[in-house]
């Protein structure tokens, strides 16, 4: 089969992608990887391009080569995600459009009026908003306080009631990079017969996760952050022992299966995947996960790289940036996410100057996590957030320290 895209050959395209990425990398410092990662590995762009230019079909809808190849591409991503999260079966990887979509499926699919749910005071709006909506529909909700940003398993255990059905726990804060003791919480959930939903939007591809070992029943992930896939990708992974009868689908529709029936199929993954999947994005996601696998030590090396960058930043700003306030000690930041403020300046002003004067891109404000900011004492002003990725370098950290030093001393 010809490898021509119609405009460029694939080799020409790969060269152009490489050049464009290098130019983009040189032009700016990107510290907003917790929002979405950038740049993407060239293999991700290549996989999306390959789908758009060669594969092209609707996965699972026909037996022609384009449909079959699309089905293969999507399945390869299921296998990659299952391997990454220690899931027993790739059929239990359900694709969604992002972590929020996956969290909504889990929260709305499990809870019924009269149930009780428990969550933490470190949640993102992607968790607390669906839970507040369920509360308005008759679900009782307990938000467990997290002094210093950490959930105490004992305190969590005391919040559990006889009618508690679901616990939703943020694996790591998108605003503060603090990790929750998921395994200890899972032990409580197991003992009390509660479904544990882990929001791994900020840890997938960054912190080693094994669903069986960690005791996670439902794992929501974003594909476009630590997994380096395109935006519009994410998913929910079901543990091997999780009973799907507990989880109602949120969407109903065409699945390419049981086409003679007007009733939604009850088998996986079709029960939860109605409508055409984002096959182009999922092809990229597969390449993104495999890029993480290809690194020496895989996820562990991502974790250590991010810790190194966060340590270097926090140690570097100490003494050289006037009025710098950090909120979490370096040793407790696990995901390369650093929230801070500069005395006398609004976070948005700092971020604007960083972007305009130094080409350093970050995110100021509340990071869609007002609950976490309340817990950490940074509501409503918010913080400046730097979130590092696998392509960030020590030189970029040093440049940002220098820039913050100049901004804080009024050399604007």
């Amino acid at each position, binding site marked *: 089969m010809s490898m021509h895209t119609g405009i460029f050959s694939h080799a020409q395209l790969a060269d152009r992608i490489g050049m464009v990425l290098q130019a983009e990398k040189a032009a700016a410092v990107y510290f907003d990887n917790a929002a979405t990662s950038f740049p993407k590995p060239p293999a991700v762009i290549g996989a999306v391009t390959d789908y758009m230019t060669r594969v092209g079909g609707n996965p699972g809808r026909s037996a022609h080569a384009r*449909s079959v190849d699309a089905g*293969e591409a999507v399945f390869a991503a*299921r296998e990659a995600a299952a391997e990454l999260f220690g899931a027993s*079966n790739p059929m239990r990887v359900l694709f969604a459009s992002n972590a929020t979509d996956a969290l909504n499926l889990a929260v709305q699919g499990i809870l019924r009026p009269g149930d009780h749910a428990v969550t933490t005071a470190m949640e993102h709006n992607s968790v607390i908003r669906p839970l507040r909506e369920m509360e308005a529909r008759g679900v009782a909700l307990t938000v467990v306080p997290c002094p210093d940003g950490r959930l105490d398993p004992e305190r969590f255990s005391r919040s559990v009631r006889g009618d508690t059905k679901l616990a939703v726990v943020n694996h790591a804060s998108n605003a503060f990079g603090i990790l929750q003791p998921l395994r200890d919480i899972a032990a409580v959930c197991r003992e009390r017969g509660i479904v544990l939903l882990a929001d791994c939007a900020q840890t997938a591809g960054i912190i080693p996760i094994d669903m069986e070992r960690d005791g996670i029943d439902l794992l929501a992930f974003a594909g476009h952050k630590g997994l380096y896939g395109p935006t519009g990708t994410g998913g929910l992974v079901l543990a091997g022992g999780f009973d799907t009868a507990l989880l109602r689908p949120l969407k109903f529709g065409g699945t390419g*299966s*049981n086409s003679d029936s007007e009733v939604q*199929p009850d088998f996986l993954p*079709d029960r939860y995947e109605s409508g055409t999947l984002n096959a182009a994005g999922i092809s990229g996601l597969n390449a993104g996960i495999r890029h993480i696998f290809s690194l020496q030590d895989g996820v562990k090396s991502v974790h250590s790289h991010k810790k190194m960058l966060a340590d270097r930043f926090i140690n570097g700003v100490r003494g050289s940036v006037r009025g710098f306030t950090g909120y979490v000690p370096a040793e407790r930041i696990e995901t390369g996410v650093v929230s801070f403020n500069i005395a006398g300046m609004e976070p948005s002003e700092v971020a604007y100057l960083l972007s305009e004067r130094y080409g350093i891109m970050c995110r100021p404000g509340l990071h869609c996590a007002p609950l976490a900011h309340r817990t950490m004492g940074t509501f409503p002003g918010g913080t400046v957030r730097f979130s590092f990725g696998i392509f960030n370098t020590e030189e970029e950290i040093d440049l940002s320290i220098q820039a913050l030093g100049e901004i804080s001393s009024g050399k604007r």
Partner: protein
Amino acid sequence: MKEYCVILFQTVTQSVWTSRLLKKAGIERKMVPIPRSLSADCGYCVRVLRDDAQRVRELLDRSGVGCARIENYQ
């Protein structure tokens, strides 16, 4: 003339998985439309040589792909 079977599943995801497993195992297979006489589904199934049917059945049982129907295919 070669004689074939088709393996039918609940979902095409199982068909794709099976196709990949058979490829890894070096077993000849092809994705084909589901014969109308066997199912009204619009998806596809996996065609294998009838002589390989037993091996395929064992492989599927071991791998956790899930329930499958093996039918003769003309």
